[in-house]
């Protein structure tokens, strides 16, 4: 099983690095372009959420992303050490409108809205919470025969 593990100090720019890594691994594994777009956003949400929580609550602890692929599919996990995730809001819009105007002024978004986007976006996502820790696991099936692309054109 091919495994990539990325540990990131909680900085916004590192969310981009996480997206890059996940997208590269997904392309390599043969995920189709539409799913890759979905994955890019989903990984971004999971990592922005985790980075925001660490920046506020555990600035010295890295956020952890793993990407693993086997024949059955691609599995990504994002683990944080922030306060456990609350329930996914039913109506994120309402919550966002009700927030204090200074909300999110530290540059980080609302972790619950990120979870709501994740849930709405990804078919196979689980959020496992323990006190002071959350692991988001996302899975995408791979098309049969998917694999690295190499173009070989031989004209003898």
């Amino acid at each position, binding site marked *: 099983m091919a495994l990539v593990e990325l540990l990131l100090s909680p900085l916004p720019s590192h969310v981009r690095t996480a997206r890059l890594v996940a997208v590269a691994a997904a392309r390599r594994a043969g995920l189709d372009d539409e799913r890759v777009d979905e994955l*890019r956003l989903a990984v*971004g949400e999971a990592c922005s959420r985790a980075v925001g929580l660490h920046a506020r609550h555990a600035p010295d602890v890295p956020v952890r992303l793993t990407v693993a692929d086997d024949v059955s599919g691609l599995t990504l996990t994002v683990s944080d050490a922030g306060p456990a995730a609350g329930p996914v809001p039913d*109506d*994120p819009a309402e919550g966002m409108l009700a927030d204090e105007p200074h*909300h*999110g002024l530290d540059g980080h978004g609302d972790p619950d809205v990120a979870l709501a*986007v994740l849930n709405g*976006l990804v078919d196979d996502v689980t959020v496992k919470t323990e006190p002071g820790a959350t692991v988001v696991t996302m899975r995408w099936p791979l098309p049969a025969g998917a694999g690295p692309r190499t173009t070989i054109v031989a004209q003898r």
Partner: protein
Amino acid sequence: MDLSLSTRTEGDRTVVVVGGEIDVYTAPKLREQLIDLVSSGQYHLVVDMEGVEFLDSTGLGVLVGGLKRVRAHEGSLRLVCTQERILKIFRITGLTKVFPIHTSVEEAVAATD
């Protein structure tokens, strides 16, 4: 891809053209821009998202923040967006009910509802 921002005035509206990626890394710049506009008395904003390649929930939060600011001055914040990928995020979060979303800047500038 980084964020690009430019603003222009059309009648009583201010059009903010956004391009590139609005994510946790670039959203603060967009927030600053919206705050600056409201501070300088521009309360009717049209945010043209046609050049946006990526938008995450942090970006949504900044747009909602802008909406709350202009509303405090009886203003408006209209979006221009026809990209399905981006519209999907507004739908998932229920924000299609909150933002007027137009298919062109002309339409948004002309809108009065």
